[in-house]
């Protein structure tokens, strides 16, 4: 804490106390290759680097780039503790550093703005208190999924939900587009459990999926590779198998489209007419 006070006591060169600020960066899914140059620069420059990363390379990298300021936030997790409590503690710790005048860098694995509540909330509250705060993009698991499964969301469209949110909040689903369900291996369990989550609610999710998709429709369990040279996990399954197959907390469920799209011909012809009419109007204006 003494070093934090020392840093907070620095002035901005004009005698006024230096204002703290926050920058949130992502370390990517695979640290070797996904880390951006800008993220490296901020990590090096920061007075304090608060991090939530999963792989040992990322942690070693952060400690090497900023040996004085690197501090893990993963110690805030505890067995059986509601994750939202942990996230709020992360936000509090981050804001405490910003308020003390430090250039604070929050580093999260993947994209720091994708399925990361503490990063968005820290930025929102820092800005509300008058501090400069921004987020830099990183490579998310969804980016890896598109690359590894060969999916172009521009072709079939893509819906993306957190699995428990999809189950509980009556999310509308279009089976003619791709569907990505995140945290399928944690569905229904809002606590942190390092040795496996309670998946008692999985039959409800299966029931929901079977009301949308044919029972034989092939889905894919996916987990991106974390280390260089390793292959991603891609496991074809059916909805029924979700209740029997072992699931990792890091799994994502990708569901390809089950039906072709339906063209809206009336709208198509109306659109063509609009364009033709616009050409006529512009020609008349020129004439």
């Amino acid at each position, binding site marked *: 804490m003494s070093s934090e006070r020392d840093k907070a006591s620095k002035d901005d060169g004009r005698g006024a106390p230096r204002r703290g600020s926050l920058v949130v960066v992502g370390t990517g899914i695979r640290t070797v290759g996904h880390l951006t140059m800008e993220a490296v620069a901020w990590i090096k420059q920061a007075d304090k680097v608060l991090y939530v990363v999963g792989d040992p390379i990322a942690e070693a990298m952060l400690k090497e780039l900023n040996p004085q300021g690197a501090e893990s936030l993963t110690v805030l997790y505890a067995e059986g503790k509601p994750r939202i409590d942990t996230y709020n503690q992360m936000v509090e710790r981050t804001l405490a550093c910003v308020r003390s005048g430090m250039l604070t860098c929050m580093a999260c694995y993947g994209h720091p703005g994708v399925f990361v509540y503490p990063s968005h909330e820290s930025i929102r509250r820092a800005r509300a208190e008058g501090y400069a705060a921004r987020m830099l993009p990183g490579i998310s698991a969804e980016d890896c999924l598109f690359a590894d499964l*060969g999916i172009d969301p521009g072709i079939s469209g893509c819906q993306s939900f957190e699995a428990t949110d999809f189950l509980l909040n009556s999310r509308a689903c279009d089976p003619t587009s791709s569907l990505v369900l995140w945290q399928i291996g944690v569905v229904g369990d809002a606590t942190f459990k390092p040795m496996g989550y309670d998946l008692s609610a999985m039959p409800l999710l299966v029931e929901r999926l079977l009301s949308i998709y044919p029972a034989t429709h092939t889905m894919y369990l996916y987990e991106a590779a974390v280390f260089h040279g390793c292959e991603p996990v891609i496991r074809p399954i059916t909805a029924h198998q979700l209740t029997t197959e072992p699931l990792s907390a890091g799994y994502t469920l990708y569901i*390809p489209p089950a039906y072709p799209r339906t*063209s809206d*011909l009336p709208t198509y012809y109306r659109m063509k007419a609009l364009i033709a009419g*616009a050409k006529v109007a512009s020609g008349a204006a020129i004439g």
Partner: protein
Amino acid sequence: MAEPKGGVEGKSVGEGSAAPPDEFRRFLVALAVDPAKLGAFLKDPDEVMKAAGISDVDRIILKSGYPAAIHARLSGQKLAFTPAVAIPALVVDLVRPPEGAEGEAQPVVRTSGQWAQPAPWSVAMYPNIPLPIFPQVQPQIFPQVHPQLVIHPQIYPQIHPIFPQVHPLVYPQVSPYGG
């Protein structure tokens, strides 16, 4: 804790070229933050690892494509090749008595030669690492549904600024089914 020795004739394969414990981790961190080093590694991983002083064992671990082994190594677990223990097998032969002699065939016990060693890349070389639970399949395993109605995306921006200029009477004049 002493690193277990193994390999051919009981000699550790990494012996003599063993890097300091953190060299492996430091090497991977360097790859993460230095694009030039990563580029050299992608081009010739063996040469770059050798130049960085990475031990033979660590080189095999990194090239194994086996996440659990890499994670275990990075978490401080020291891995080594399993000792090259010869596995003797007892073979029982039934030896018939010489022709003309009486009596039944007698069992004679002998030892066979040693069994084959596991291949250097075999998972069996890392007995303290759990086996992968799931078989993996190749990516790109399902076809995508192609667009049924191809409309050039550049059409859209052209509509917006001109839209108010189009007379609404244009709509009823166009049959929705192209007639």
